[in-house]
């Protein structure tokens, strides 16, 4: 996993609710056997709309995306997280995320930042003109206009994100406990 501690830069002010994983990356692009190169197909249906944030030069290469409720709902496809990663997005800020997506994002070193709707609305407004800062050390999102919003991260997830830790490697250390469980349950 890539480590992530501090992000600073423009944020795509998308703001919509129920952005599903089919919208993030369409099924046609799931026919790949690698993780790479999905960014160019990300948000295809939104990118057909004139004036969309993804083709706005102000936000090119933004490391942050701001969305509405229930971001990443729908399919379990991790291709959605890979597509964001390939676009260079390292944090998504929204009032809520689907459970499967937030897990997938975390495994790819993308931070799912949960803030309440008024905070998200304020960040959408500021991000139209100014860059944002997401700091995992202080667990805050800040703006050049002195806004400061705190968010929560599971301690374990935060440690993995900041240390770029490999979960399978960590679990391998529990092999004796896994074996004992199998012996006890007879599976």
């Amino acid at each position, binding site marked *: 996993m890539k480590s992530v501690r501090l992000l600073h830069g423009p944020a795509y002010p998308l703001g919509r609710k129920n952005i599903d994983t089919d919208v993030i990356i369409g099924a*046609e692009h799931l026919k790949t056997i690698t993780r790479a190169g999905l960014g160019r197909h990300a948000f295809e249906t939104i990118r057909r709309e004139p004036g969309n944030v993804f083709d706005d030069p102000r936000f090119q290469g933004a490391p942050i995306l701001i969305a509405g409720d229930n971001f990443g709902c729908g399919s379990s496809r991790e291709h959605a997280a890979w597509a964001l990663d390939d676009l260079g997005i390292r944090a998504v800020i929204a009032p809520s995320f689907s459970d499967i997506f937030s897990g997938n994002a975390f495994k790819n070193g993308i931070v799912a930042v949960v803030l309440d709707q008024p905070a998200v609305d304020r960040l959408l407004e500021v991000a139209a003109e100014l860059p944002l800062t997401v700091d995992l050390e202080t667990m805050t999102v800040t703006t050049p206009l002195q806004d400061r919003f705190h968010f929560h991260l599971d301690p374990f997830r935060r440690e993995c994100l900041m240390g770029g830790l490999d*979960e399978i490697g960590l679990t391998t250390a*529990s*092999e004796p406990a896994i074996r004992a469980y199998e012996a006890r349950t007879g599976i």
Partner: protein
Amino acid sequence: MTARTLYEKIWDAHVIEQREDGTCLIYIDRHLVHEVTSPQAFEGLRLATRKVRRPDLTLAVADHNVPTTARVDSRGARLAIGDPRSAEQLAALEANVAEFKVPYIEATAAEQGIVHVVGPEQGFTLPGTTVVCGDSHTAAHGALGALAFGIGTSEVEHVLATQTLLLRPSKTMEVRVEGRLGFAVSAKDVILSIIGRLGAAGGTGFVIEYRGSTFRDMSIEARLTVANMSIEAGARSGLFAPDEKTFAYLKDRPMSPKGDAWLESVERWRTLHTDDGASFDSSLRLDASEIAPSVTWGTSPEDVLPITGTVPDPESFVDSSKQAAARKALDYMGLTPGTSLQDVTVEHIFIGSCTNSRIEDLRQAADVVRGRKINSAIKQALVVPGSGLVKRQAEAEGLDRIFTEAGFEWREPGCSMCLAMNPDKVPPQERCASTSNRNFVGRQGPGARTHLLSPAMAAAAAVTGRLTDVRELVK
């Protein structure tokens, strides 16, 4: 001992280790693998020189990409897949299962089918087990009392390597429905109505347990339809307490326990229910009499109404973000507020998907179609059985002839037009009455417009060429 919910019992029985912050290492009893979300996981194992820890608890089958047209020629030789990228993904799965010695159901075998139809059908899914798959509709397996949920590819790799996952416990939600369902009201209408009430994110962070007489009266196949769509309300899992119907369904399945092991298993499974006095973090109650045959009008499964309703006015929603979403949805769907849903014409019919492709689904659709013809305005009407075994059973009952004589195409099993990864797609701006589970923008093909409904309702739409109250057609 404190009273526990069914979810808590299954969770507790699978905790290997608990960390200080509450994260648990959970044992995974069953892992289903398909071709779309596994290639990068196997590649990860290969790069780290890891093995599949328990191939005996793993089962692979291809379903998403496979064409639903003939797979073998008249001499039984396997036909090549036309789309080179789909062919490559299937070839990757076949190479990976061979290299890592994972049990695999061949694409041409009678047992092949949609992974969530195959698991229960083979007795791979059992009550009280933890079941995962790189697919969000894994929730379906909860119909048998398994704690089943979809995972991403990194988690697929984690399970392949360690047979475990690192998880935090979910909150619990009781969805209770009491009473008898009305004439021609099906399990699909029940779950669509629940999603309409909860909203697409209402179940996020929760595991739902479906309780009450309406669910107890349901067959296992109906319960599979309900549990399957738990994820459309945001819940990663949906659970039903196993009962005599569950045991009867599983007895003598190819991978079910046999002999004494069967008797011991049933004894254990009888303890899998929520204790009296156990409490849920949230609850929703419905009366079965409130549920009508239903259909979606928008681009989220929460956008659902009884078939007797009209296309809503976006301004009628209280929440401004919902107003904006509804305006976009109606624009995409090509619908005008105030239009009666029964005046909406359709050009495509899809009966299939992991939600509604089992034998009872096909019987319910066939009952409506029998002796009728599909409307001349219908450009394509597909019936895609959920597995080769469902297809064989339907053919033994003559259902295939009922469908083909009416003008439907009778296809080979797979995910098909539910997500349009194979050649079965709805063309742009055309409208499909579909028994699948998602009406997202572009789900059935770029620009395609999807209306979710039950198999009987899809059959009724095929006959009339518009969204139809099946109760009026078959009364």
